[in-house]
């Protein structure tokens, strides 16, 4: 038996495979297919202080080996989550992580304070990288001062594992990573989606109601992998890698580049079983390569 356990600060995971925020609902949707207790963790849908309707339809466009989305953080707000959803899902046998969003630092703080009270939420992922909202979101994640400010303030009110989710839409992602590490982030997760655009050449209109949206899927994997590798070499806190992971080989590439755990996002739309298949695939890989633990892969790219 190989050992798949990994640790993200205080958070012990039975395996390094999480599902990404905004691509796995509130975990319940996945339970229609399988027991989510198999997963390393589930990142819940991006949550804000108040109800948000999100952006108008159309919100997605297929692209070469990927897709654009412009969901825009549609959610019913943190109070609705606490009252109506949390009670239904809190007994799932996997760590549930809330993806915290805000248009102002105060909003981030308020949401975090509320989540801090929830026994069964061992960690939050601070989303400072959503490209699909007008205020807040990515604007916090593309400059060091603002990324620092929001991390510092949220850290003050949060006791458990604080993961900060980074935007890839920057010149040097290691600077942002170091900035949030300096303000007490326990881990960084990367990457969120790349700002992209698609056009209907026949109708001469943008395919998304918001013109631009977030690019995800295998198309972005080479860039995401490079960023994970750069950040791994720049910070001391554990890195959570994602961006286009479709199978176990992809996940292992991220581990080798330095990720302690990975998140699977868009792949779930193609097949909700992919995260589970990746867990099995990593297990098989370790056995085949006569390794005892997944930790033997993390950061072990040979140069």
């Amino acid at each position, binding site marked *: 038996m190989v050992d798949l356990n990994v640790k993200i600060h205080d958070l012990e995971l039975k395996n390094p495979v999480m599902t990404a925020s905004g691509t796995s609902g509130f975990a319940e*949707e996945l339970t229609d297919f399988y027991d989510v207790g198999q997963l390393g963790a589930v990142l819940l849908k991006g949550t804000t202080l108040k109800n948000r309707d999100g952006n108008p339809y159309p919100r997605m466009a297929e692209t070469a080996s990927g*897709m654009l989305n412009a*969901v825009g953080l549609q959610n019913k707000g943190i109070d609705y989550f606490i009252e109506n959803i949390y009670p239904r899902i809190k007994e799932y046998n996997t760590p549930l992580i809330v993806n915290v969003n805000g248009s102002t630092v105060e909003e981030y703080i308020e949401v975090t304070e509320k989540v801090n009270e929830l026994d069964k939420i061992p960690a939050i992922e601070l989303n400072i990288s959503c490209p699909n909202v007008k205020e807040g979101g990515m604007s916090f994640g593309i400059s060091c001062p603002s990324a620092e400010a929001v991390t510092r303030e949220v850290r003050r009110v949060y006791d458990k594992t604080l993961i900060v989710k980074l935007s890839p839409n920057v010149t040097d992602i290691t600077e942002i990573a170091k900035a949030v590490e300096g303000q007490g982030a326990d881990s960084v997760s990367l990457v969120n989606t790349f700002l992209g655009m698609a056009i209907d050449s026949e109708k001469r209109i943008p395919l998304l109601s918001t013109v631009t949206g977030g690019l995800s899927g295998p198309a972005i994997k080479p860039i995401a992998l490079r960023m994970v590798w750069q950040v791994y070499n720049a910070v001391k806190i554990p890195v959570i890698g994602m961006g286009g992971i479709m199978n176990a080989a992809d996940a292992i590439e991220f581990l080798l580049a330095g990720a302690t755990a990975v998140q699977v996002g868009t792949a779930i*739309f193609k097949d909700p079983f992919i995260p589970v298949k990746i867990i099995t695939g990593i297990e098989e890989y370790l056995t085949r390569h006569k390794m005892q633990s997944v930790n033997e892969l993390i950061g072990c790219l040979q140069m």
Partner: protein
Amino acid sequence: MSKKFVEDFKVAENIALNSSNFLIKLVSPKKLPDIKPGQFVNIEVKNSDEIFLRRPFSIFEIDYQKNTLSLIIKILGRGSKKLTELKAGDTVNLVYPLGKSFTIPQSDDRILLIGGGSGVAPMLFLAKESGLNRENVDILLGARSREDHVDASEYSKYGNLHFTTEDGSFGEKGFVIHHSVFQQINSYSKVYTCGPDAMMRAVAKTAKDEDIFCEVSLENLMACGFGVCLCCIEPTQKGNLCVCTEGPVFNIKELKW
């Protein structure tokens, strides 16, 4: 929430109904779960360098004995084209059953089913499953021209078939809302419709004006099909709802139409 599956099916047959519509019958190695009219599958398009996501299609027919499930696929773009090239014996992967079904009529209902384009599929499925005597079921199918209609004659055992064509080459001339049975919309207790947006909106408008129960089945761009991506929304009285889980069937009263 209800149990859903990701399963490989084999293509049993693929029949061209006309130049752009294909009837694809798929067989599962496993027992099919319970499936109701209005529900759909999300189907993987393999061996294409252009297509990344699955494509949603309404379920048209089910045979629980033979474990077959049929779809009517109309060629619209690259994915539907590729699917209509499937051959008997090929494997296709489905995520299913997805979405909510139409409200099954009660025994004293008189229903009107209005289908256009690929929306014919769930209408015929509903006719079959309605549990009503055929005299209480009217099926109105619209198309541009005679050759765009699929052969629905088998369904005359479940209801009275009516047709319109825009060029008058088959059935009554005009759109579905111009058909004589549609003029008697007040004689039905429930109206169901699936097809092009413009058609459904026209039907819904009359049904709303006349205050008749009416359900429509929306077609929307979908990424996941099971409620996790929030891409497939429709603005409703209750805010933006996911067409894939809260629909595709909606009562027109819920919509902002």
